[in-house]
């Protein structure tokens, strides 16, 4: 009625906030289009003097980005598969009971994350070397990175399982289902949305995996895009506009997928209480 303008004001505010938040992204695109020395100009220009779109195809070709991005997809898919398969069951059990053992389990999952990846890599490298995993380096990276993304996944998916009404599972058990049957036919379908969304988030964050890949994968043809990007960063030859062009090519497809999927992601996570 009288306050019908309020939602529009909120929309306006939301747009302003989004503009501020997305500014770094804008700056990435603008910087990629500037010439080498315009980047260092003071005061900075908000729009490139001579936008050089040529930088995109040339960076793509020169850096063999097709191969790099494909490897990123392979690694991120592997990490997601491992995390989902191992993490879902774990999260389910941790949500189902309430005991000291469950507390210890949750505690352990978090504590095992104490070390930053940069410190974990030496022992992992030594270990992978002993069991011969260095010969299948992408698989080794998948294992290492899945262990890193597991706690996040377990904590989130556990919360999803918490919201599945316990009575439904118990009813299924009373009806003569086994635990395995009840898990696969009742609990999993109900938690499907949350799991799917967490899987997507895991995929997106492992798309940028860097520290493990850089040490474990020696063959350039198998390295992901993050390692390809770091190849630019030398002491005497930091080619910033190519770096930004590379970054833009690197993140734009995943941003596009993300923007397309985001409504489902957010609602997949937030609407579960409403079902």
């Amino acid at each position, binding site marked *: 009625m009288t306050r019908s303008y309020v939602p529009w004001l909120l929309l306006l505010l939301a747009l302003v906030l989004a503009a501020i938040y997305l500014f770094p992204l804008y700056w990435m695109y603008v910087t990629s289009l500037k*010439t*080498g*020395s*315009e*980047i*260092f*100009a*003071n*005061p900075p220009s908000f729009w490139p003097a001579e936008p050089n779109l040529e930088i995109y195809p040339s960076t793509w070709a020169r850096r063999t980005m097709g191969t790099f991005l494909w490897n990123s997809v392979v690694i991120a898919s592997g990490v997601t598969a491992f995390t989902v398969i191992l993490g879902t069951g774990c999260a389910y059990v941790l949500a189902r009971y309430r005991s000291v053992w469950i507390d210890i389990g949750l505690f352990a999952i978090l504590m095992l994350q104490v070390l930053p990846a940069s410190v974990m890599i*030496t022992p992992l*490298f*030594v270990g992978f*070397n002993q069991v011969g995993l*260095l010969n299948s380096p992408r698989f080794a990276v998948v294992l290492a990175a899945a262990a890193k993304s597991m706690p996040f996944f377990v904590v989130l998916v556990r919360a999803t399982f918490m919201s599945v009404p316990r009575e439904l599972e118990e009813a299924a058990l009373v009806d003569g289902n086994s635990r395995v049957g009840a898990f696969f036919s009742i609990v999993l379908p109900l938690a499907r949305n949350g799991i799917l969304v967490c899987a997507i988030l895991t995929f997106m964050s492992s798309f940028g995996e860097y520290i493990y890949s*850089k*040490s474990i994968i*020696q*063959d*350039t043809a198998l390295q992901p895009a993050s390692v390809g990007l*770091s*190849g*630019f*960063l*030398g*002491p*005497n*030859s*930091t*080619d*910033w506009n*190519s770096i930004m062009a590379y970054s833009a090519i690197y993140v734009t497809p995943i941003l596009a997928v993300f923007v397309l999927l985001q409504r489902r992601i957010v609602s997949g996570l937030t609407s579960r209480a409403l079902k």
Partner: protein
Amino acid sequence: MKLRTLGLMAGIALSAMGMAVPTMAQTVIKVWSIDGANSPGIGDTLSAEFNEQNTDIQIEYRILPFDDIVNEALRAFATGNAPDIVSLDNPDFALFSSRGAFLDITDRVAASEIIKTENYFEGPLNSVMWDGKLYGVPKYTDTIGLFYNKDLFEKAGIAEPPKTWAELVDTAAKLTDPSTNTYGITFSARAGEEGTFQFLPWIQMAGGSYENVNVPGAVEALEYWKAMVDSKSASQDVLSLGQWDSTGTFNSGNAAMAVSGPWELDRMSEDAKFDWGVALLPTQTEGGPRSSALGGFNYGIFANSKNPDDAFKVLEFFISQDERLFPDFSSLPARNDIALPETGVALKDAALKVFQEQLQYAQPRGPHPEWQKISKAIYDAMQATLTGQMSAKDALDQAQATIQGIVG
């Protein structure tokens, strides 16, 4: 139908024959370097050429980022996965050679037709020696000098680039013009090897060395640096800018002088829209002792290489191409028997002559197996002073105490 089958069989037979050829005793030599990330570099180009010319030996080449190559090599060596040949920044070399991780190639070089120690400059050669033995070969070399913007000098009525430290500070102050966002000078005082690389020459000009950093002249030099940052003749961002980014502000006209090296020449020739030149680093007093930093990379063969003979052949091939270092890759050979051809770009050729003179005064960092710790003591002192946390004297005294503990 029959014809197709026949053709197919012929095809299989042909490809089987084709496959039979390279299976004859082929050895693979692994080479690691930082070359080839941005544009074709020495390591990647020469490896590809070698692979075309040879069938019995093939190079497997891997690019690594500058910041990672040493610890990747360490980890690989410790676990038995080391490459055959690695190329390292010269101060990192002693970490490996002092521990026998590199192959002693003294005798092989003595017998070699291609690699001759007498052809090398003293500084680069010292960086591959340990205990009187030769553990590697210099790949290329570089150093730093003073770039200056001749247009801005003319505008300020300054005829010549500064010759002494005091003149440098004065000149920088005169050239500074906040209204056009121009600083008098830019350099790199970063918290890393680049910071040490730029400051150590000043310690050496004052009669000090990496083992003896708190000589009075070094304190004076650091005070001059601080004066330039404090008076805003130099941007405070010299504390976090690397050399490449620092020189970028010179190219865009936002700094009138820059301390940097010959690796800048190609970009500067293209980007700088003004007349520029290079001068030798200013000395403490007029005509005083000169010094500069010695940059550049070395090749080493790992001691646990399974095919040291073939690895040495690859090394000889790399060195045999040294004449092309400058024309093809804009790198300076570390040798006194190779004349650099004119490039035809006047500014670049003039600059090159200065760098070649400056190179005669270049002194290596180390060699010392714990160079990185010594270097950290030096750049920590520099940063503590420039940020005003300690006086130049106290900071260098503290660095000296740390270094004393390392060199004994």
